[in-house]
């Protein structure tokens, strides 16, 4: 297939670039090795929209973080995904750490973060009664927020698709060659020929970059483990609670999620294996201990799941964004934290660069708005009534814990870039994300998937080929 631009990776960064580039008169192919969008780092992170006080002024991290964070609210309305500005707090447990708090404050101000202030332990405890008594001071950032990382990614990808970008799943890039006709991209399937290539391959961005460029980069997979807690303890804190780096290890936060759960994590361990999204006993234990320093009591018994994600850590500590040494080959590499916050701005920037390169014009028929799946659980009684009248399937509850209906699941399957896997349904609707973790609803969800996709139930997977749920009967 011949296109103007190939984007490698359909995580939050690739999807954002695809969406922004689909404003232009450019043919786009997004190649994703997994079976869905949002299958890598984008699905397993803190879901935080960082205010932007952490990144060193002048870095790409600082620039894109602050700009992304400022765009997030409007974007959440335009593309209909969950986002809430809940504020961030950095705790200090030691009077002597005052300079460190001040350093963050200064950095934030230099980065253009608004409303930062240092508060006393008592002032913080008034805001957050469950904060540890050992906290002496804290930095408060009212512009910090939380977002649904799944629907942020899905919404941008869907919108890109509606605007003409083509997505190719289960498509792994095996080689890239610059030829006189453009970049020849070989995959496990189809071959692509593109004028420009954008590398948004997450932890594998080094492999992709190094296929083309002589100046090699290295991306290290840095594992982060998390524990997610029941919604009944979701109110333990209302802001996102960080600790001053150094005091009790680095970066374990305690935060409500945008859906009302409590999340504690991540750990940070470098791993050679870029597929190692397994949790470990050591990691999970340390989370409880480290995260536990921030709050009075960790609700151990209310854990509903744990998971791990891999950050794409670059050697130079800063994002690698822009055209590489090979003209027409662009990188969005090393997008570790605050990558989720920065993604909308990275997309905007790179789309602009690529459009310039291709001398592409903005389309007049770009559809900027996207309407998400109706959320029956959050709908008012009147809205529920209206939905059910429109389609009785909105009354058939499939996931009891999160109150997700058949109507929503069918929507998730039928919409652009619809779900084809159980995890795909889960990330789009929350079916199976509740306290029973899909015990009751997975058989029913599989049944709906099989019916709507018109495939045998045995062929259905959790997250793509190899992860089939059921196995054929063996003849005895």
């Amino acid at each position, binding site marked *: 297939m011949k296109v103007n631009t190939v984007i490698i990776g359909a995580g939050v960064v690739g999807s954002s670039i695809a969406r922004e580039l689909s404003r232009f008169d450019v043919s786009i192919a997004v190649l994703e090795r997994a079976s869905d969008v949002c299958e890598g780092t984008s699905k397993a992170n803190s879901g935080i929209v960082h205010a932007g006080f952490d990144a060193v002024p002048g870095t790409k991290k600082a620039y894109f973080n602050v700009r992304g964070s400022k765009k997030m609210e409007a974007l959440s309305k335009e593309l209909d995904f969950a986002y809430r500005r809940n504020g961030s707090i950095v705790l200090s447990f030691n009077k002597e750490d005052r300079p460190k708090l001040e350093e963050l404050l200064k950095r934030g101000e230099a980065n253009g973060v608004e409303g930062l202030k240092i508060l006393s332990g008592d002032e913080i405890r008034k805001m957050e009664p469950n904060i540890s008594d050992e906290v002496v001071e804290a930095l408060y950032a009212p512009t910090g927020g939380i977002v649904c990382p799944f629907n942020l990614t899905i919404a941008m990808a869907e919108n890109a698709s509606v605007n003409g970008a083509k997505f190719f799943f289960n498509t792994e890039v095996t080689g890239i060659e610059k030829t006189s006709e453009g970049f020849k991209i070989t995959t496990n399937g189809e071959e692509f020929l593109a004028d420009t290539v954008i590398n948004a391959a997450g932890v594998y961005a080094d492999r992709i970059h190094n296929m083309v460029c002589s100046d090699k980069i290295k991306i290290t997979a840095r594992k982060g483990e998390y*524990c*997610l807690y029941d919604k*009944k303890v979701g109110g333990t804190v209302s802001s996102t609670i960080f600790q001053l780096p150094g005091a009790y290890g680095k970066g374990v936060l305690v935060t409500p999620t945008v859906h009302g759960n409590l999340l504690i994590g991540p750990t940070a361990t470098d791993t050679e294996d870029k*597929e190692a*999204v*397994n*949790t*470990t*006993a050591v*990691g*999970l234990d340390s989370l409880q201990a480290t995260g536990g320093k921030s709050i009075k009591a960790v609700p151990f018994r209310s*854990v*509903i*799941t*744990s*998971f791990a994600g891999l950050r794409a850590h670059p050697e130079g500590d800063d994002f690698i964004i822009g055209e590489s040494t090979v003209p027409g080959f662009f990188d969005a590499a090393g997008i570790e934290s605050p990558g989720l916050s920065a993604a909308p701005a990275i997309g905007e920037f790179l789309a602009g660069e690529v459009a310039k390169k291709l001398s592409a014009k903005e389309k007049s028929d770009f559809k900027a708005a996207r309407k998400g799946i109706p959320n029956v659980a959050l709908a008012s*009684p009147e809205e*529920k*009534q209206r939905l*059910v*009248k429109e389609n*009785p*399937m909105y*009354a*058939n*509850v499939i996931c*009891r*814990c999160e*109150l997700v209906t058949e109507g929503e699941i069918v929507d998730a399957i039928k919409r652009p870039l619809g779900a084809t896997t159980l995890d795909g349904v889960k990330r789009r609707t929350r079916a199976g994300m509740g*306290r*029973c*973790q*899909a*015990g*009751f609803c*997975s*058989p029913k969800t599989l*049944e709906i998937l099989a019916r709507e996709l018109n495939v045998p*139930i*045995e062929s259905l*997977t*959790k*997250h*793509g*080929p*190899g*992860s*089939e*749920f*059921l*196995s*054929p*009967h*063996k003849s*005895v």
Partner: protein
Amino acid sequence: MKTKIAIIGGGPAGLAAAIAAKEAGVEEVLIIERDRVLGGILNQCIHNGFGLHTFKEELTGPEYAARFIEKAKELNVEALLNTIVIDISRDKVITAMSAEKGVFTIEAEAIVLAMGCRERPRGALNTPGYRPAGIYSAGTAQRYVNIEGKMPGHDVVILGSGDIGLIMARRMTLEGAKVHAVAELMPYSGGLKRNIVQCLDDFDIPLKLSTTVVDIAGKDRVESVTLAKVDAKNKPIPGTEEIIKCDTLLLSCGLLPENELSSQMGVDLSPITGGPRVDESLETDIDGVFACGNVLHVHDLVDYVSKEATEAGEHAAEFVKGASKRDSEAAIGIETGNGVRYTVPVCIRKSRLRDLLTVRFRVGNVYKDPEICVYLGDKCIQRRKKQICAPGEMEQVILKKTDIEAMNSGETIRIAIENESK
């Protein structure tokens, strides 16, 4: 709409409560059931062993349920199927939703909570490892095999020796799977002795006590699990790891009463059972709201569920007939003595007692040759010898109204396990 008694859930507890209320003369009894059929989880329990106490014969789950469903039909118990309750207010207005009726409300004079329980998922165990396909709760696997006719996998390890796990060890074996082991964290099984014999021993499936899963391998589908022995504090002992190649891990690690609705409406719940605290009439702290079956506390046998739910239905009937309002009478507390984890009920009001009261409870450990003792104040009025008491089996004592009436004010009832052999 309006009704006299609304029953939330049409499983064994809801059915028995509805039948009892109807038989006690209440005209309007309404079951609200989220599934498309009545009978609850019994429908997927196609093994036998149900009804030995109730019907003096061995029935399968669906057969046991059918007897109650037919009885309920005979009595014209009304049932709303495919209907999910989304909220219950303290003044007993139920908000429900169905494809047929949309969102609607039901005003009830009394409510019987009979929502049952659910299984503890992998996430709640915080088991490290990957998160591939092939990890199911035992009940989910049971549904696949018995209702959908599908196999979840062929090489199976089971974590937890709860009854559903034991039943599924046998079921998967009969379907041609190899069940390599059942691992149990505790030094004793959480299931019934008869299930260990009939489901594991008879099929040579090893039960590994004081053992847990410490790792799950396989990114897409389960490839192996690592078992390890645990110490007295349930911490894995390094060096005892054993890797078992398998494609499926079933979990049977405990059942949790499903009290989201109860908790939303403000019913006082016990942290031990996860179910409402009830008095002698199985009435919660909210007047006219009763609870029975696994939503109240997890039972071992459905026969006991039916019995308890019958009582709840009768008490709800008395309530709507105005015969049984709680007054200012102080309740007598039932205390848990040595070895007793909880009791149902937790308190008694003398004026509402029937001649005999069944107090159900579970013990916290395995006791050999113990005595189950009942104290009224300082006085021991019952001392019953048993061969064994185990956490997997529910126990009960029966109190006489005449004994309770003789108690002095300020005294409490205490149930304890004593004189077990070490």
